[in-house]
């Protein structure tokens, strides 16, 4: 995943140096969990603004924040966690105050048919069940930790993955019996993965901030994209994907 992000960065950097600031390009760095929704919103934006070419760099929020800090040519940053946005803000990288445009919460994901008969967080303490979680260092892992603390459950994972997509893959392949992933991920996986809600999910709500960046080549266009995400159309697309309203 990281390698992919870096490769994308190289491509983006390469294009940025060869093009001029006045072209129609808009570069958006967005959290990986926004891949499907932002791709749709980007297409809408291009249709509404002829001559604009929206380019995305999807990746882990912390990696994206680091890349922006290292001078990657981004116009807009949409993060899956306020902490990563704060990094960019602290470095003076934003052109306006970040605004929260969506929220996400964890769900229990089980393979279709729920072979292990998982019903709630308590089953995550079962040594016989194969469990996958996000590593605590990444936002979905931190959120999972909060949920287990609230439920008083000591989870016994068989693997702690580096990002939520990797966790989801293990569920899709049926390699694990249960995992905690974002509700949007369950939704995106279609019929292969079944989501199960749990009471402690409120403790796992994750806020998504977005902001135009200080080094944007066209500040007005960057602001317009942020507004587009926050528009009714934007909210509808996000809600359809399983995001909560902010």
């Amino acid at each position, binding site marked *: 995943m*990281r390698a992919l992000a870096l490769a994308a960065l190289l491509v983006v950097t390469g294009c940025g140096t060869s093009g001029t600031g006045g072209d129609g390009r808009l570069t958006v760095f967005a959290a990986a969990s926004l891949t499907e929704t932002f791709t749709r919103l980007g297409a809408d934006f291009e249709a509404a603004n002829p001559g604009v070419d929206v380019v995305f760099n999807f990746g*882990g929020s*912390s*990696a994206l924040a680091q890349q922006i800090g290292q001078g990657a040519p981004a116009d807009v940053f949409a993060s899956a966690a306020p902490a990563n946005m704060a990094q960019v803000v602290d470095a003076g990288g934003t052109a306006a105050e970040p605004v929260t445009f969506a929220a996400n919460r964890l769900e229990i994901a089980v393979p279709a048919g729920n072979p292990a008969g998982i019903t709630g967080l308590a089953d995550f303490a079962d040594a016989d069940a*194969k469990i*996958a979680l996000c*590593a605590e*260092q*990444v936002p979905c892992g931190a959120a999972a930790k909060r949920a287990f603390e609230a439920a008083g459950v000591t989870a016994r*994972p*068989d*693997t*702690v*993955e*580096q990002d939520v997509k*990797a966790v989801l*893959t*293990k569920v899709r*392949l*049926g*390699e694990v019996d249960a995992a905690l992933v974002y509700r949007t991920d369950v939704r995106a996986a279609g019929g292969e993965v079944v989501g199960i809600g749990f009471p402690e999910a409120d403790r796992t709500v994750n806020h998504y901030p977005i902001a135009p960046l200080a080094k944007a080549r066209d500040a007005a266009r960057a602001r317009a994209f942020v507004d587009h995400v926050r528009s009714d159309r934007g909210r509808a697309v996000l809600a359809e994907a399983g995001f909560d309203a902010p």
Partner: protein
Amino acid sequence: MALVLPAVVGLAFLLVPLVGLLVRAPWGTLPARLLSPSVGEALRLSLVCASLATVVCLVLGVPLAWLLARGDVPGRGVLRALVTVPLVLPPVVGGVALLFVLGRRGLVGQYLDAWFGVSLPFTTAGVVLAEAFVAMPFLVISVEGALRAADPRYEEAAATLGASRWLAFRRVTLPSILPGVVAGTVLCWARALGEFGATITFAGNFPGETTTMPLAVYLALETEPDAAIVLSVVLLLVSVGVLAALRDRWISGPS
């Protein structure tokens, strides 16, 4: 001059990032970090798994190399190409392929699970398998090259002296291709030690069980870049140490 300049650039390209790693290393806190149990655990696991994977590669790869170099098999060219596929396959894809075959619902894995209760993903054995899958082509190519360079008539001479194929291979061929086998083993071990993609995909990541050094580096990068650098430096030093120890063999290559 036409060769020297690109050569120097090439050398710099390979070495400067490593130097950068060393420059950025937090030398002050290095000893404390090195002695932390999690680093020791990851390092121990890495060394054990890479070594076990190398043993697996030797046991399976040397006979395979012999088959490719000497065997009377139809479609040897195709077979040779297939064996090297893991070299070009993104390791992550290799990991997914392993899941499809050896996972709980995999072609073979489902029977392993149903009949023997054996499940390979998320286990140390899974790490060894993933590393062996990615590293074996290095060994096979190296040994096969040495075998093809070796004169098969020595095996014939051994046969006329009453040696079975196996004895001839063990006592005559293997000693003559030893430099190639050693070079292949080192390459294979080094590749296994640095393996990341197939391991994390097939074996997952759990400290003490499947978290090898490269996985630990990757995880640490998320939150603690300094720790990641320390882990990388350790990995770098271990690899350089081993490669340097075998340098003579390495440089002489298969002969």
